[in-house]
């Protein structure tokens, strides 16, 4: 340590603390910060642009003369789109009726019933379902599931046709809204499951142990200590699943042979189509005002899903605020 390098180069002039000389590195901070902030603002702008562009391109269909729409498009916008709004909601609701109980069951299985070592791999398995592209589900739904469910549908129709849902002339291809709903249910299952699993795992352990110590069975413990705590989370998960089911395109458009009618019969070949499927099926061939009408329909879908998602996120954030969990 005779002549340490450490002490050689430290002879800075007086006033070394004030940044008198130009230090190029110091411009980095505001620039970088600007980029980061700009990226964030850009995202807000993109979201606004999505709404704005749909509005611009959809507007002609909304303000055009009904006669022009009949001549060149699909007819007056609201009358045209109404059955599809119904179809969208109806398919999504059917899907949720199927998916929600199963998803809650799976989430409970993973969080409270499966051996601890298995819980994570089982979670992955369910996540794999989420990774399957929707077009693959569509293919499977159209070519495998639809033919497979025909006998079931025939049986339901023969024996339970006093229930309005199952009445009517049963479809011979199985491509009904119920099949589409089953495929949709499969697709929203992992979303609902993973969120429910998370809230079930967050349920306070002390409450659970207290319930068990009082002699509750495991199911009673879950009813007593897990469900009340998890209720807002479950609702939010359902809403998110709903958002996904409303917007899902391919699975429906590849499975369903839909048309513009409003019916609650789920086994017949007369099915209401969904907005997303109508767009996907009609867009490649559309021109002129038809294109505008399809885009306007997309705007309606956007508004519906936006509302559903905002409610869901609001519930989630409210829960996070008072449970103190992040």
């Amino acid at each position, binding site marked *: 340590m005779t002549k*340490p390098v*450490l002490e050689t180069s430290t002879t800075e002039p*007086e006033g*070394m*603390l004030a940044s008198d000389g130009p230090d190029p590195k110091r411009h980095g901070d505001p620039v970088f910060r600007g980029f980061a902030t700009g990226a964030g603002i850009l995202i807000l702008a993109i979201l606004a642009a999505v709404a704005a562009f749909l509005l611009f391109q959809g507007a002609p269909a909304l303000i055009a003369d009904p006669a022009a729409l009949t001549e060149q498009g699909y007819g007056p916008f609201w009358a045209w789109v109404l059955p599809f709004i119904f179809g969208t909601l109806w398919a999504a609701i059917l899907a949720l009726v199927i998916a929600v109980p199963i998803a809650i069951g799976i989430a409970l299985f993973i969080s409270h019933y499966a051996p601890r070592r298995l819980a994570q791999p089982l979670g992955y398995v369910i996540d794999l379902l989420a990774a399957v592209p929707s077009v693959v589900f569509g293919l499977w739904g159209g070519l495998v599931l639809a033919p497979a469910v025909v006998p079931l549908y025939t049986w339901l129709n023969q024996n339970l046709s006093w229930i309005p849902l199952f009445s009517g002339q049963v479809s011979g291809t199985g491509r009904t809204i119920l099949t589409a709903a089953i495929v949709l249910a499969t697709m929203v299952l992992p979303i609902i499951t993973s969120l429910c699993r998370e809230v079930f795992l967050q349920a306070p352990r002390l409450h659970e142990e207290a319930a068990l110590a009082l002699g509750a069975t495991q199911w009673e413990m879950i009813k007593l200590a897990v469900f009340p705590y998890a209720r807002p989370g479950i609702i939010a998960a359902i809403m998110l699943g709903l958002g996904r089911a409303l917007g899902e395109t391919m699975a429906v458009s590849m499975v369903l042979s839909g048309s513009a009618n409003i019916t609650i019969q789920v086994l017949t070949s007369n099915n209401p189509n969904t907005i997303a499927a109508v767009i996907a099926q009609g867009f490649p061939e559309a021109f002129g005002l038809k294109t505008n009408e399809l885009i306007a329909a997309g705007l309606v879908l956007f508004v519906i899903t936006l509302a559903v998602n905002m409610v869901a996120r609001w519930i989630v954030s409210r829960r996070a605020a008072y449970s103190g969990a992040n």
Partner: protein
Amino acid sequence: MSKRIEITDLNVYYGSFRAVEDVSMTIEPKAVTAFIGPSGCGKSTFLRTLNRMHEVIPGARVEGEVLLDGENLYGPGVDPVRVRRHVGMVFQRPNPFPTMSIKENVLAGINLNNKRMPGSEKDELAEQALRGANLWEEVKNRLDLPGSGLSGGQQQRLCIARAIAMQPEVLLMDEPCSALDPISTLAIEDLMNELKDRYTIVIVTHNMQQAARVSDTTAFFNIAGTGAPGRLIEVGPTDKIFSTPDVKDTEDYISGRFG
């Protein structure tokens, strides 16, 4: 290269809460100054104001003057980033960069600031800094291994090496031994004794024996109660503070009656 720090009427606020009130003192160069006091008395906060590290915490601000050899750290046009290049800091828990090797950790200050330097000079600097931190013999054969593979005490000395490789005038140490075992603590204390020939060293410690062992000057901080700001109660030569302090509170604290 060791510099004197003069603090006048320093107040530290977190938002509207005053954490430290009216501190004035002088920290001598080429010496070790220890800050002692009960938890929450503001000594760590105060330490951070000496290289403007408190500004990392949102809402923290300072009133008053801190002169480093006559130059105000809080003067207009002073860049906190430059201040920190002159006033180094070592933290409570060793925090080597997990993505860097031992050598890269030592040279982190140079590399992170995009400073250009020939490779041979870098090697020499790394060796000097590691020698300065009494770590060279232990790591010279594994300079390219990750710094996180070292023991806690070695990691802390690596952090000291990292700080002195920046060639600071002052070295601030915020409870540098609180996460270490007694043997490692001893190594760090020995190191401080060597380093004070070249640097102004300020150490915050909860361990009064440590303050007595390593420091030349001791400053005692205290708070009147929860929510009250921390104050400097007494400062003086360590021998005097630990034998015949002027203030009763200091004596009570030293003798273990509270805190």
